[in-house]
């Protein structure tokens, strides 16, 4: 048959074994990994205090909150959507949980103290609600996620302002306080929470039907729809998952930082997005995963932490950070191109 001859022709050399395929398919994961290695080696040489066990703990601590957010964001980006409201939703949720906790009088917030579990429930409800509004706007009304979550970013900030009114709340429910501030033996709970989110996020993506749908929807939305996948439901779910992850990150973060205040998490938006894309997950959807996000988190974590260890001009650090970020992205692109060439 003609199809046969044509095909066998195409795929030679046929020796390309499973491991080769595997390696190739991992090339876009390897690129950020190389960036990571490079940074680690560089900072280890540049500062004696960088490559210490204690500092490894620091780095893990420092990326934990971003990591929890980035799990949800990875799902969103895998679906070829974006969520610009992650940091804002985190902030709002963190503030809600503090708002419903008894604050010391000096906090000076007219709040509504409730039992811890109730505060946590209400906070979770808040982030689900905000995620639900995102999901509704994107899938039902048809607002592009970039714009929808841009509006949500401002709404989240508005909720924060309304609740704390410029003050700072310090107390959170004991359970949250434990997660944010205590440690299980040598490992802080916040790291454990982040690791759990990453692990569950990975398992769901790789081993469940829903996870497969996420990749398929991101890979080709139309095809997914014509295969009978409920695309809207998948997208609505990832928007809500993202908000939920952000919410947990916000609650744990408020405990970790010891206070809940407006604009506290602002810098986390760029950090979370950067972690996901530096890790090699494609903004166009369908390619990447939690593994990539972990590498991306480590790249950014090491970069931020390492720059604190070396003695360079504070004003120059900002520029250097930007340039290294750009370099990491360029490396990613070339690795992906190399991979694409190999595949075809």
């Amino acid at each position: 048959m003609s199809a046969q001859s044509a095909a066998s022709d195409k795929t030679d050399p046929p020796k390309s074994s499973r491991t080769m395929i595997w390696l190739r398919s991992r090339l876009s994961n390897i690129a950020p990994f190389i960036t990571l290695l490079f940074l680690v080696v560089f900072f280890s040489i540049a500062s004696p205090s960088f490559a210490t066990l204690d500092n490894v703990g620091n780095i893990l601590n420092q990326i934990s909150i971003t990591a929890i957010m980035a799990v949800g964001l990875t799902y969103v980006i895998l679906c070829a959507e974006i969520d610009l409201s992650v940091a804002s939703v985190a902030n709002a949720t963190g503030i809600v949980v503090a708002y419903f906790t008894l604050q010391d009088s000096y906090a000076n917030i007219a709040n509504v103290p409730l039992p811890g579990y109730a505060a946590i429930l209400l906070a979770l409800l808040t982030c689900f609600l905000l995620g639900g509004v995102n999901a509704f706007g994107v899938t039902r009304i048809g607002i592009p996620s970039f714009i929808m979550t841009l509006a949500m970013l401002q709404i989240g900030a508005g909720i924060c302002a309304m609740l704390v009114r410029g003050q700072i709340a310090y107390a959170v429910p004991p359970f949250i306080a434990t997660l944010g501030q205590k440690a299980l033996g040598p490992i802080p709970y916040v790291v454990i929470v982040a690791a759990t989110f990453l692990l569950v996020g990975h398992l769901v993506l790789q081993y469940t039907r829903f996870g497969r749908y996420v990749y398929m929807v991101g890979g080709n939305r139309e095809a997914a729809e014509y295969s009978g996948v409920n695309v809207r439901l998948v997208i609505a779910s990832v928007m809500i998952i993202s908000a939920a992850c952000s919410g947990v990150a916000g609650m744990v973060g408020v405990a970790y930082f010891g206070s809940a205040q407006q604009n506290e998490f602002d810098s986390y938006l760029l950090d979370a997005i950067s972690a996901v894309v530096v890790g090699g997950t494609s903004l166009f959807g369908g390619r990447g995963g939690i593994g990539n996000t972990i590498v991306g988190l480590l790249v950014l974590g090491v970069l931020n932490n390492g720059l604190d260890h070396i003695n360079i001009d504070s004003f120059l650090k900002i520029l250097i950070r930007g340039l290294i970020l750009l370099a990491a992205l360029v490396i990613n692109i070339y690795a992906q191109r190399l991979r694409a060439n190999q595949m075809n």
Partner: protein
Amino acid sequence: MVFGGDRPLLELSGISKSFGGVTALRDVDFTLHAGEIHGLVGENGAGKSTLMKIIAGVHTDYGGTMRIDGEERNFRSARDALKAGIGMVHQELSIVPDLSVAENVFLGSQPVTRFGRVDWRGMNAQAAAHLRSLGIDVDPRVPIGSLPIGLQQMIEISRVLFSGARIIILDEPTSALSPPEIERLFGLLQALRQSGRSMIFISHFLDDILGVSDTVTIFRNGRKIVTAEAAGLRKSFLIEHMIGAGHEDLEESYTSEMMLDSKPDAPVVLETSGLTLGRAFRDVSLTVRAGEVLGIYGFMGSGQLELARALFGKLHPEKGTVAIEGRQVSLKGTAAARRAGMAFVPESRRSMLFSHEPLYKNMSISILGRLHPVLLRPNAEREIAERHVVSLGIRPPRVDQHLGTLSGGNQQKVGLAKWLTYLPKVLVLSEPTRGMDVGAKDDVVKIVRGLRDQGIGIVVVSSEPETVLSLADRILVMRKGEVAREFVSEAVSKDRLLDAA
């Protein structure tokens, strides 16, 4: 007509091209003379479009040489090719939907006044005049996206025809046109040829190729097999050289009457009544029985594509009901439709497949829920996929291969294979053979018959009469969104079908 004497207008020699590891063209020679219509045929993936894109300056990285008027040329972009007088109508519709008809007629070369200002008024007037000469009467200022697809295609063709190009490449230009439009196009090609322009014409409709061409070149697997004068050639010759000996009878012309073989006793699996959706289709009532293929024929833009989508819950009719196996269902979305027992294969490959994913994931997506409600069962997926890969003769038979590396025909088979395990109650196929070579068409026909024989009710929607005639047990003809005629257990030919449309 013999062109041997004068110097060729276009001369390609030793052209090779590969994409990554895939070799699309090997050492191809090709010549085109002034005033010649050169037909190009070959199986899917044979490299026809690739060669044309090289001529048109889209692919710039290739081996071999290209001469125009004897002068060696190496285009760096489509712009260079256009400047050299080469225009191409691409296989995929390439219009800008939000821009006006006039701008699409002049896409990329909007007329400007002396001061470099875009001359809107002049452009509208000229576009209207051009289109009128093709028998098209539309307001040049409406967005082209608001027109029916056939008309969009005609406007795109007119852009190239009126661009002043000396060499006009038409890559499957008729796939979205109705027979009358096709006729008009062919008339125009002849007229252009009289004025000394040359054309390369690609089509999988061998009758058309033989009808319009002066010369025919046959491609196979990236190589040029033969070039011959069209006059006196027979279809069987083309098929033999495209696919190999023994398949000469593959394509029937359906010029004579054939009997439809309806099955009035089988149970009804799908019944719609009064389906209406905006201007797309009105008051469509139909039934499909188990083990029967219902063909729905209509010119492009007659509403049959929208009807197919509505049956799969992608579009939502304002009025009417759908019942499956006698039970009324509400097709709120494609997932609901699937669960209700519907399956659908869209007309374009791009919208049915995941090219970055391996074969087995492409095949298993619809049945994941049956393997396990929550978890994935990759081994079971592979097993199922392997069965289909063998039974459908998909090459290469490796289920971990990324789909994007397969040839078009094989990709299309994968799209069908998706539903083979699912075994829906009703399978809706939208233009299942569009753009397929004769061999692949035949494969599709076999697969569809196999599914029918398993008792599935099948709806085949198409604007190609041959497809409908080769598959259907019963035929509905749609015209302007309404069911115009039904053929049941009677003799029907291509001409009768066209008359009804």
